[in-house]
């Protein structure tokens, strides 16, 4: 009961820290990562599938390195490297964001690639045999079918991104996990703060997966 009372009290005193700052920054960071990561991911995917071999190798190397090293390490590199590369000062959250975007883009590019390659080769052959060129075939025949393969995996990636932004708290950038650190530091009520943050993460992801589910069903209905 005391536990419950503590939670109510924390929420009463610090709801702004959790709901406005914490959720706000987490959403901001996630949305930017997902949006920029998807766009960059498309380009990485194009590079990976391009006919120009050295470009394939370059993208393959980047993806392998990003997948083969810990996220936290990449955030550290972003945190220290990005300010050095830019001639002007950037807020820490931007440096962290850059690292998150590159990380996400690599995973997304693989999702796109596998989705495209999962489309039967016969589809491409049929389109080409009708005289369609490579671009027309990709846009009108392959991609519309690939989207259906891609969407569930892409949804997974979005959920992962929301959870991974918690690592940015290492650099105190203000997202949900940072708000946990702040409030815990002031109240010394560790479990209660963890509970609140955990519920908030869960709600965010639960809502997101529901929305993606609706979207997927819409796409299926168009079949």
């Amino acid at each position: 009961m005391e536990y419950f009372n503590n939670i109510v009290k924390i929420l009463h005193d610090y709801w702004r820290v959790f709901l406005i700052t914490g959720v706000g920054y987490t959403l901001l960071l996630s949305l930017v990562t997902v949006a920029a990561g998807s766009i960059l991911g498309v380009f990485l995917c194009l590079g990976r599938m391009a006919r120009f071999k050295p470009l394939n190798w370059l993208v393959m190397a980047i993806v392998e390195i990003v997948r083969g090293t810990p996220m936290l390490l990449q955030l550290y590199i972003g945190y220290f490297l990005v300010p050095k590369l830019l001639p002007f000062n950037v807020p820490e959250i931007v440096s962290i964001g850059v690292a998150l975007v590159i990380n996400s883009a690599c995973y997304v590019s693989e999702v796109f690639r596998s989705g495209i390659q999962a489309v039967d080769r016969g589809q491409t052959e049929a389109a080409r045999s009708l005289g369609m060129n490579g671009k027309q075939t990709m846009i009108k025949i392959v991609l519309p079918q690939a989207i259906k393969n891609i969407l569930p995996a892409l949804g997974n990636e979005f959920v992962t991104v929301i959870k991974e932004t918690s690592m940015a708290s290492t650099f105190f950038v203000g997202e949900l996990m940072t708000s946990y650190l702040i409030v815990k530091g002031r109240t010394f009520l560790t479990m209660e703060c963890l509970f609140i943050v955990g519920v908030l993460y869960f709600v965010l992801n639960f809502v997101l997966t529901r929305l993606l589910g609706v979207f997927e069903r819409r796409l299926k209905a168009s079949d």
Partner: protein
Amino acid sequence: MTDTEMIRTENLHKSFQIEGKPPLHVLKGVTEHINKGEVVSIIGPSGGGKSTFLRCLNLLETPEEGQIFFEGVEITSAKVDINLHRQKMGMVFQHFNVFPHLSVKENITIAPTMVKKIDPKQADEKAMELLNRVGLADKANEHPSRLSGGQKQRLAIVRALAMEPDVMLFDEPTSALDPEMVGEVLEVIKGLVKTGMTSVIVTHEMGFAREVSNRVLFMDGGVIAESGKPDEVFQNPQNPRTKEFLSKVLY
């Protein structure tokens, strides 16, 4: 080139590289010609190069050596825009390869409207006419997932015809069908052949090959081992390999 010639191949070679294995030499110098209005069936054992040869004709496979001439143009030349020539070569695949995300009618209209820039309304009318011809007009707005195998293959045939090709290439068009659906697809091909459409048909349906073709090619080991009128090839094969093959499939 004579003015009756449609397709000519000179000394085609094709091998497939499979990792960790020696390259598979599938075509070992195929020289052949197909005349306008001719219906040529290609028979022979699996792995003999029939499908590869057919797929080379519209360059779905690129031969390493040799030339292909289509209507007098060397399409194996690097300067040629193959997309232009493919428009005149319809192809029907073993596994139909209809577009599952498009309606039956859109399957037919997409290439004419996109590639030939035909007016969508006109393409629609043409599509309905073709669907009528193969008895699928009532399915025009369905998706192909609602069609049976035989219906899918009939759709694939008219999809190719919508481009008004000069030649039709059939790659084992009935091999993936349930037995009771083979007949309906063969009927459509037969009807097409009667209109004078130049056709090259890779098939395991010996009775059909014998009935519709002007000429039968027997391919084995990457070469055309025998070529002749259907009656000659089926009744009095000259090559021992043809004899052996026919004795196994005609029982």
